[in-house]
């Protein structure tokens, strides 16, 4: 058995080295010079009204992919909730709140984190950021809050049923927003809103709207995931 194992190990190492070797050799071989993606760079701002080309692609040109990505995230939230409930019927165990200093600093820090998250979401079409990053930052901020105040306090403030309802409402809103152009006789996922002046907050058509919805949804989803991980443990 051990001979089999060590032979397998040697084989695996050789294999991985060969795998990397092939790929490295391929990339060492000189690639094409012309740069791709010029289409987006030349016409992206005019087409979508968003200065940040990445969010222009992410939420306009290739919005369909993003819908799937949101669904993937929702499935993750759903799965975590399903598999971690009624495993052990422990409600949130009151963890001992941290010391006064920690609590004060969390009180100070949380609004700052929230402001940063909102900035990421709202200015997603103008500067780096966007709904997903903003939502994740806000969700992690809430974790900080629950470390300082005790998970029970935060969990009471963000009630489970409410969270669940908020989550599917946001999902439904995003899906319906994507299907709305069909009613207007346009292709699905078409951007109905005016493009605005590039560079302003009110520009980029529906990108801002999508960013807000996604940010909200990801914020709730992130908190649900963290909340269930904490609850399953019984404490933080």
């Amino acid at each position, binding site marked *: 058995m051990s001979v089999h194992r060590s032979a397998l190990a040697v084989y695996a190492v050789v294999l991985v080295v060969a795998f990397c070797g092939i790929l490295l050799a391929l990339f060492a071989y000189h690639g094409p010079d012309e740069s791709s993606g010029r289409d987006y760079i030349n016409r992206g701002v005019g087409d979508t009204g968003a200065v940040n080309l*990445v969010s222009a692609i992410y939420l306009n040109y290739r919005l369909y992919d993003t819908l799937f990505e949101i669904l993937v995230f929702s499935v993750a939230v759903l799965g975590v909730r399903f598999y971690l409930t009624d495993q052990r019927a422990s409600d949130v165990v009151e963890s001992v709140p941290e010391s006064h200093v920690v609590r004060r600093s969390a009180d100070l820090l949380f609004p700052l984190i929230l402001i940063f998250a909102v900035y990421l979401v709202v200015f997603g079409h103008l500067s780096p950021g*966007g709904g*997903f990053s903003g939502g994740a*930052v806000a*969700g992690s901020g809430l974790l900080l809050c629950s470390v300082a105040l005790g998970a029970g306090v935060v969990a009471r403030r963000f009630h489970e049923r409410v969270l669940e309802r908020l989550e599917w409402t946001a999902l439904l809103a995003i899906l319906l927003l994507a299907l709305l152009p069909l009613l207007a006789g346009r292709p699905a996922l078409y951007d109905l809103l005016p493009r605005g002046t590039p560079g302003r907050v009110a520009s980029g058509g529906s990108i801002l709207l999508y960013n807000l919805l996604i940010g909200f949804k990801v914020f709730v989803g992130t908190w649900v995931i963290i909340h269930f991980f904490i609850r399953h*443990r019984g404490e933080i």
Partner: protein
Amino acid sequence: MTQTALLLLLPVVAALTLCQRRRLIAVIGMGVFSLLLSAVYLLAAAPDVAVAEAAIGSALVTVIYVLAIRKTGRLVVVGCEVPGLLGREGKRVVGLEHDVLEGFARELGLDLYVQFVPRESIEPALLRGEADIAAGGLVKGDSAQELCTTPVHLPTAKFRIVMRKGAKPLAEFGGSRGYLSDIVEAVRHKQPLDVTLDLARFMTVSRQDLTGYEVERLPEESAYTFLVNPNRADLVSKLGAFLGKMQEKGELEAFIRRHMS
């Protein structure tokens, strides 16, 4: 320049991380790796990706890993049920050894998890690595294999229960180790018996009617010990130190008095 340095750092950090034995360190290493990666993205003119990687890849992922592995970080104890030492009260586990191990686990930052198994499968469980520590009234020299035993013991008295006429030989009950349930059964049916028992087991047996048996307290003391998984030899010295500290503070005596009186 900075970019090249960062890029060279990435495989080093990754390789070191994946070689870690302790999961917590590996997870933190991965968080560091993600931060480096997001710096690389920033330098590679991809600020959007950098923000996403920092927010999701390094913050969120590390958080859920830490939450998950605290869950998986446990001290697993196997043992046979011996009331007073390691017993059950409803769903709770109670007893002297349980209290001691609970304190020890808390000191290590682990959750205590007690699994009750028959006496004969304790050692295989340890050898298979399914548990870290074995407990439940074990005495020194108890293990057939070379398993680690802790240097400090929990001292109590020893008893002998005898019924003279046609006593079965000791070996049938496993000597001083004794299959407790067999002995209790034997006492209940008033079968001939000749066994030496430690205090905890004696307390269990004495709940039965012992008329007709001779009971004598032996002069020598018995001492309980813990067996430790040979792969976790580091636990031996830690547990020894912990017990020593308890003895110094007098907590050990208090525990023994509480459970053994």
